[in-house]
């Protein structure tokens, strides 16, 4: 954004950008809407980076363990489930790789998804006061959320890659495709997250119910449980859009056969229009949300 005057003020002043605020819905001028969306997306790139750097550096500043927190949670989850399955309290099913690896990778991938789903709403909630006072490209918050998710994913994945050989899993060449799975988790997560943000920013019910739903979704996804062999449980797992993402990710790491590539592609293809609809909804909603949430 060229918010500052260039040395050649006179020529710049010839073409003053004009902004009109009227009660008309921005959806009534589709062409303008798309142009504005793309323009704001471009303009938000560096601001989003700044937001992400700010939040990441502030995140661990008041902690003792610092960046260790990024994978401490999945590690503890793994320990819990290894204990539960070893003691026979919970039947998790047969896994083709060692169960601790299965859970560790599963919870890490799941963490990326959950974080991406939560990001848009939590970004808006955290920046409420800034949103209500300053006019900056609203896309910056979403992009910053994506940057942060990417950063956290990168840390976790490097930990996994370092740990796997010690856990008896030899990495295959397919691992170079693994980042694609991370991107698709972030794509799907952001698309879903954007979809609930407008109403979630108005009613805090959404923010309260989201973790509960995600907890439930985890149990019907191949995160800690193996893919069921048959029955209604298998159908539920198969219909669950997250399953193919998780399984494909795990298979790429361990070099297992790629059974779910097709549904993986379908889920990603469906996520794109959802993301666009969510984005439009978010843009349209922001003035309304700001009007209702600020004094």
């Amino acid at each position: 954004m060229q918010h500052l005057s260039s040395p050649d003020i006179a020529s710049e002043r010839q073409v003053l950008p004009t902004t009109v605020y009227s009660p008309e819905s921005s959806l009534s001028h589709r062409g303008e809407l798309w142009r504005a969306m793309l323009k704001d997306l471009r303009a938000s790139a560096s601001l989003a980076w700044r937001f992400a750097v700010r939040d990441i550096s502030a995140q661990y500043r008041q902690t003792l363990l610092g960046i260790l927190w990024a994978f401490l949670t999945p590690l503890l989850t793994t320990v819990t489930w290894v204990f539960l399955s070893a003691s026979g309290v919970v039947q998790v099913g047969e896994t083709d790789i060692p169960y601790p690896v299965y859970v560790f990778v599963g919870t890490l991938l799941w963490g990326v998804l959950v974080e991406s789903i939560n990001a848009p709403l939590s970004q808006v909630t955290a920046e409420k006061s800034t949103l209500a006072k300053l006019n900056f490209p609203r896309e910056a918050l979403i992009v910053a959320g994506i940057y942060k998710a990417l950063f956290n994913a990168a840390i976790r994945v490097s930990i996994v890659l370092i740990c796997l050989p010690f856990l008896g899993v030899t990495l295959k060449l397919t691992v170079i495709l693994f980042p694609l799975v991370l991107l698709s988790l972030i794509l799907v997560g952001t698309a879903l997250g954007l979809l609930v943000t407008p109403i979630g920013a108005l009613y805090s019910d959404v923010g309260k119910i989201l973790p509960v739903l995600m907890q439930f979704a985890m149990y019907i996804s191949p995160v800690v449980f193996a893919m069921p062999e048959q029955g209604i449980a298998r159908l539920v797992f198969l219909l669950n859009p997250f399953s193919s993402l998780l399984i494909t990710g795990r298979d790429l790491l361990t070099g297992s056969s790629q059974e779910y590539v097709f549904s993986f592609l379908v889920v990603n293809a469906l996520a794109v229009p959802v993301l666009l609809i969510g984005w439009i909804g978010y843009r349209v909603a922001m003035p309304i949300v700001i009007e209702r949430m600020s004094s």
Partner: protein
Amino acid sequence: MSNEPLVKVEQVSKKFCKDLRRSLRYGAQDLVREMRGLHHGGSDALRPGEFWAVDDISFELTRGECIGIVGRNGAGKSSLLKVLNGLIKPDQGRVTMRGRVAALIELGAGFNPLLTARENIYVNGQILGFSKKDLQRRFDSIVEFSGIGQFLDSPVRTFSSGMKVRLGFAIAAQLEPDVLIVDEVLAVGDIGFRIKCLNRIQELLKETAVVFVSHSMPYVGRICTKVLVLEDGRCGLLTTDVAKGIDRYYGGFGWGERQDHFGAVVGIGAIRINGVLDFGSVTVQYGSDVALEMEILPQHERRTLCARLVVWNQEQRAVLDVIGQDGELFSWQSDGRDSVLSVQLRGLTLTAGKHSVSVIVSDCATKEVLCRVDNACGFLMGQHLSSAAGLFFPGEWAVGPLAIGEDRTEESACAVVSA
């Protein structure tokens, strides 16, 4: 070209809802309507529980103009600003902004308390629309303007609110926008910094159209070229006569109550101004007289009493301290009986607006205040000339021929004229 308006506000209205639950429901309804491509805010009618927070406001602003938007709390100033800044949509009307718009609304919004001032300069600067390169270039001048150089690497949460405002304004002051929106940001900060800010705004005003919201009328009087007085969301007055606008703003407040303090030894009864008891009903024209009569009700035997009046203008500045002809407090011997104290103020040259009078009676010997009545009576000075001062002083002016001779040079011409 420069005469084209940069800000054009046409019949803008904005509804608000007092009830939170309803407000959220209307928000959800608006959201659905908006997604269906319909007009914002429903039909033009108010829904139950709603009111017009901004009602049919229009004005224009060109480069070099500064509009002061004034009004009591809740008059709709902030809502109007939010519409102007594009944060919320108008329910009716239209706002056209040309050029880059910068807003100084609550400085330091977006500061992260854990990060250092240095880091926050970059974050805040980019929120305000600087590019990274611009910020690097202007970093030193930001730090210099803020005057918090030695705390550059301390986390912002250790800053006082005044320091945060300093930092916030220093960043924003580097912007060179076409339209500047300023919302009551000068309220915090010490007087030195406030003057610095005001000077910076005035400097920007040469190339900018400024929307200035403040409760501080001296600032409005100092920098604004027109005033919009908001009264319950409606336009009470839109005028280029800034003094008149300010009077209108003050006129919106009542006279207040008479307040008596420490009246145990001496009480003050009825007070008449120009023979009238009725509070605030007297209008005094420039240069005319005012007569005050006060009933003095002593509760003691004999004492020497002193009296003085203090006249306050509408900014709550004391503009006159009325004493006796001899340059001392007026004093008299009280024999303990009720009496009437009267004073004539001849040829008053106060500036326009509401004035209220305090009466102070003290013991001449001990200087102890025996009775003080604030808001004892009030009068309205008529409109005469606009002034930011409290009092006109009719000077003795003259124009004569220039003195010839001496060692006058070209450079000292100015000094000679003023001498």
